[in-house]
């Protein structure tokens, strides 16, 4: 019994057993995050969202520049008396 417990402690699995009450929510039974296995869905969503955001930003900026130039042309053509 003691030997197997010591073996379990060496493997680092001492606190892994969840409590028997299934309906309690407790911070003490949170699973250890496994950073060795990539969360590919999360990675894909993050990169996809980043690409979409950059595309949106660059598109918005180019539209802003075009609209500003267009309004400048319109203003120069329109009125000469209010300068």
């Amino acid at each position: 019994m003691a030997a197997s417990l010591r073996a379990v402690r060496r493997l680092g699995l001492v606190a892994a057993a969840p409590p028997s009450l299934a309906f309690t929510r407790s911070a003490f039974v949170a699973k250890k995050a496994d950073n060795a296995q990539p969360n590919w869905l999360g990675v894909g969503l993050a990169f996809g969202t980043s690409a979409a955001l950059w595309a949106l930003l660059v598109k918005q900026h180019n539209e802003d520049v075009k609209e500003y130039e267009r309004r400048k042309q319109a203003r120069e053509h329109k009125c000469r008396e209010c300068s």
Partner: protein
Amino acid sequence: MVFLPDESRSLPPPPLLNKGSVWLGFAGWMSALIDNAFNQRPIFGAGVHRQILLATLGCFVGYHLVKRAEYMHAKVDRELFEYMRHHPVDFQGSG
């Protein structure tokens, strides 16, 4: 209250990488690095997708905030110059 009224488009748009977007992008990147540090992951090498996403989000929000700030400043300047035009007597001393 509209975030960017239509007349803000008459202003020259700020460059894509301006003080707001660069600073907030840097802040987003820093928060990803700090998140790595708090979760005891390698600070620069872990979660590159997270770093890129938060930096992008910062740049996006920063760009639109700078656009709104420039619009608000231009609006106040316009009102100031209109007031100065209507009250030239009060502003003779500076001329």
